[in-house]
């Protein structure tokens, strides 16, 4: 089956400095899309970035990620972290075995941005 491995546990960064959250994956199907979801405290997860195209940079809310199928990676980066970026981040992929979508999530990375 599919699996997603991301930077586990807690990542802390000082406001204004760059941040990178790692994500690698294994998939046995024709994977339709790759995602980063963000979950703020006491809220539901929501999609932050989505990509289906190899080697294409995707950007949203100052974050960016590039899908690299050669290395099975989809790392999330931001050049200057903000206090409001503190949240739980999930890397995920969505497969379509037999035509029905089945998402696979990593275990999540908690990002804390401190002043």
């Amino acid at each position, binding site marked *: 089956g599919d699996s997603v491995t991301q930077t586990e546990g807690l990542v802390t960064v000082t406001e204004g400095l760059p941040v990178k959250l790692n994500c690698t994956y294994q998939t046995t199907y024709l994977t*339709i*899309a790759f*995602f980063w*979801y963000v979950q703020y405290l006491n*809220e*539901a*997860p*929501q*999609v932050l970035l*989505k990509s289906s195209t190899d080697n294409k940079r995707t950007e949203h809310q100052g974050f960016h990620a590039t899908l690299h199928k050669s290395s099975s990676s989809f790392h999330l980066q931001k050049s200057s972290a903000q206090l409001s970026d503190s949240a739980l981040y*999930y890397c*995920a992929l*969505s497969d*379509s075995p037999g035509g*029905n*979508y*089945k*998402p696979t*999530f*990593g*275990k*999540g990375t908690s990002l804390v941005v401190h002043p």
Partner: protein
Amino acid sequence: DMKVTQMPRYLIKRMGENVLLECGQDMSHETMYWYRQDPGLGLQLIYISYDVDSNSEGDIPKGYRVSRKKREHFSLILDSAKTNQTSVYFCARGHPETLYFGSGTRLTVL
């Protein structure tokens, strides 16, 4: 608007009681999902529903069952709840491969 409605927001039950969590969305043809979220374990898939009475087990279906009798509604049922089912439960809709989550139900089983 990818709205997903979950009820209730908070729920406290005693061990052995039955629990019904409800989820709704307004685009009837979409796939729906139930997840539970626990610290350090992330989002764990319980069940998927592709259509009315077309449900598929996820990664952790034991102790749960689901019902989808109308396309807009997807229910999660815990028959005789256990303390280890204390968790936050999220329903989601797939559009089609992007998930949109409800606000969650925090279930405490005493």
